[in-house]
């Protein structure tokens, strides 16, 4: 019996011996290099020689410094972001974000699906504000097809999207507090978000990835359940949001930690192509809804909240102001809602003329855009997605050095990146 069965370690010894006399051994991208590592000891330094000067400089430690590998599994990296921090004591000297743990190739998937299917692929990018992911895609395709969207459909789009913006911003409030160690605000803001999300579910059929916008309109008119839920919520929304905010706004510990943290000036912010609330918090009143008007926003009356400080507290307060403006917009939409169809007349199979189209909107995190090229077939020839989270994450390298480990998470949270959109 013992003679016939191979020893369990035979295969293992063979493998280790084959590693040595291998033609590719020692090659910079040899994946098997990682097998040589001791089990259970993870060094954040990549297993290949540095590819760029920056990488070489970052991965050499000076006296008294150490690497701290934060993520991809970490309680507060908002998804699967990995940040290699170079620390001096607890002070962050330098950092290297490592992306791509959530990469799904959405842009390529869209090129292999027809125009209607592409919209469904866009939803899970920024999963907390899914309607804003659909919108630029739909708008770009409409431009390609030269479709006129019915006015009622535009109103419904704005109404549902602004609701989604409030949901996203109130979730931001909770995350912000949770990353600073507060346990309660996240659950209070989830109440807000859940109310809105249930409301949108009765309109769209889904709680999270709504898939509601269609090329040429929306999927279904307003219904009674949605309207009654919306009316219930609108009657106490302002009070409820105010109550949630006072827990943080008047908290000395919270304000002291946030003020002056992760400051960025308007010039740098523009150079880093920041947009949305993060840019407006530095004093640049740039909002796609006013700068490059789309849909029915020119007809609506609302302000662009702005702050000058450019720190975490400003970014937080700005988002809270935006919630109030969104409530104003919703109110106006409900009062001015016209009658009519919610879907343009379109053929079932869409074949736009060859051409290219760009559509950008103001998402809760900034300028969200889609650039699509059509070659005359029923699938987009190329499709590129501009995601604000990705660009905001780039500027993290400018904000964090000099702050403490505890602040890295606060800065990250104040920029409000969604890794689904960053990695696409």
């Amino acid at each position, binding site marked *: 019996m013992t003679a016939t069965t191979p020893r369990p370690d035979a295969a293992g010894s063979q493998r280790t011996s084959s590693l040595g006399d291998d033609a590719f051994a020692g090659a910079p991208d040899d994946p098997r290099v990682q097998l040589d590592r001791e089990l*259970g000891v993870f060094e954040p330094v990549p297993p290949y020689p540095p590819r760029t000067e920056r990488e070489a400089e970052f991965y050499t430690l000076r006296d008294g410094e*150490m690497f701290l590998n934060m993520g991809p599994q*970490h309680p*507060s990296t908002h998804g699967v972001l990995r940040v290699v921090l170079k620390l001096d004591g607890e002070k962050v000297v330098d950092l290297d974000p490592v992306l791509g743990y959530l990469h799904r190739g959405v842009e390529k998937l869209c090129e292999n699906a027809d125009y209607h299917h592409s919209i469904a692929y866009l939803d899970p990018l920024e999963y907390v504000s899914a309607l804003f992911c659909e919108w630029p895609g739909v708008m770009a395709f409409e431009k390609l097809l030269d479709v006129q969207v019915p006015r009622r459909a535009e109103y419904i789009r704005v109404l549902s999207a602004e609701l989604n913006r409030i949901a996203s911003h109130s979730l931001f409030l909770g995350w912000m507090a*949770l990353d*600073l*160690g507060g346990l309660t605000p996240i659950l*209070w803001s989830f*109440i807000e978000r859940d109310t809105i999300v249930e409301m949108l579910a009765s309109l769209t059929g889904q709680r999270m990835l709504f898939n509601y916008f269609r090329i040429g309109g929306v999927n279904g008119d307003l219904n009674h359940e949605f309207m009654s839920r919306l009316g219930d919520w609108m009657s106490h929304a302002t009070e409820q949001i105010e109550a949630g905010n006072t827990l943080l706004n008047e908290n000395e510990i919270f304000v002291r930690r946030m003020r002056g943290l992760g400051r960025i000036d308007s010039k740098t912010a523009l150079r880093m192509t920041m947009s949305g609330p993060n840019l407006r918090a530095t004093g640049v009143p740039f909002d796609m809804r006013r700068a490059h008007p789309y849909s029915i926003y020119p007809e609506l009356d609302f302000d662009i909240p702005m702050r000058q400080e450019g720190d975490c507290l400003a970014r937080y307060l700005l988002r809270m102001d935006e919630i109030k403006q969104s409530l104003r917009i919703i109110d106006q939409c409900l009062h001015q809602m016209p009658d009519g169809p919610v879907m343009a007349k379109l053929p079932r199979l869409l074949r736009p003329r060859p051409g290219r189209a760009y559509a950008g909107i103001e998402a809760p995190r900034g300028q969200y855009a889609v650039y699509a090229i059509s070659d005359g077939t029923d699938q987009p020839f190329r499709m590129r997605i501009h995601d604000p989270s990705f660009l905001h994450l780039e500027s993290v390298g400018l904000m964090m050095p000099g702050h403490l480990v*505890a602040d890295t998470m606060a800065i990250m949270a104040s920029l409000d990146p969604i890794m689904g959109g960053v990695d696409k």
Partner: protein
Amino acid sequence: MTVVSRGWNRLTLPGKFLFILVPLLVVGIAALIILITAFGQLAIDTLAANLPIVRFVVAATVILLITVPTAFLIIYMEMKIIALMNLRIGPDRVGPFGSLLSVVHGLKVLMKEDFTPTGADSVVFTWAPVVVYLASVMTLLVIPFAPGLYGADLNIGLLYFFAVSGLAVVGLLMAGWSSYNKYSLLGGLRAAAQIVSYEIPLTLSVVGLLLLAGTMSLNQIVENQQGWFTDWYIFQQPLGALIFFIAATAEANRTPFDLTEADSEIVAGFATEYSGMRFGFFFFAEYVNVFIVSALFVTLFLGGWNAPFAFPEAWQVQLSLDPASFNIGLLFIIGLAPVVLTLLFAAPFWLLSSRIKWWQALLIGFVLANLFIVTLALAWAYIGLNWVAGILWFMLKTYVLVFTFVWMRGTLPRVRIDQLMGFAWKWLLPASLLNLFVTAAAIVVIGR
């Protein structure tokens, strides 16, 4: 032989157990009787001669055993209270209102794999939770729970408390260093910096109180505060009490000073690599610490086991109930009282409501009678036994403070390490020195 084995096979499983156990029990009891008759008197004499040691061993055992239900209770309190503050329901599945969930947590922690990571210094790694746990448990030894109910009445009780609770930082450093994990290391270093810094205002804040009390024995300090609640030291040392509370929060690693285990920054701090019961020890130590810190605050500033009121002697109910004086009547009372009381309490429900059936009325009567008897017994114990009243007041005050800690955890975010250290050295330390000087000057001027 075959007969015996056949008989054995016919036995059921409990039968087989009994077949072995009963003879063993008989032999054991016989041996015990012989041992007691031979050496019983000797053993009693030895114990009586070494009463302090016996007392110490008993106290240590009891205190070690107390910590488990205490931790369970505080964990449950924290889960439930924070849930209510978060507008959640919280635990509600295991036991009434989910009250057994923390017991389930304890069992779960026991059953999990005890894991030592590669590269860890396994000896230090193993002993770190023990040091942390024992450091917090040993401090319970000097806390007076009630008149006569304490582990040891040391004349340097307060000093002992600070010295032993300060040892916990060694355990935290051991855990942080030996885990071979940078998060643990950061947590351990934070713990060292934080606890060593806050030890100073913590100790200085009570020096003013010591000047007033003139003793370091916790028992004596409690006895000094007898009388109405205005005699409590918190009214003579409000600043000291405030500093003590803040510093004690930091000592117990509670929000907003829970930097050592800041889950959103350094995963779980020093406990990152721990699992199973070793993590359980850290977890237990944290909650026992909350209890201990509250208990010490109550002892020092809130009058310990004293009731907040002291009525004149003449008003007090004198109750001398000697059960032996009833003679054989006692048996009748024990036998009859439950039945009579049950019927008495059941009668109105049966008579006044036509919807309640007789057995339902009896059931209600039984429950009410039991409640009545328990209330009577408690009232008798409260009036008749000094230590029952003491422990009731002590626990009430302590758990109000524990609630405050839980409340803070539900409300406040965490401070940053530099803010934490700055607060200790720039504000708390000067404030506690000021408190000390003002107290000393007042004693000199007023002459006590």
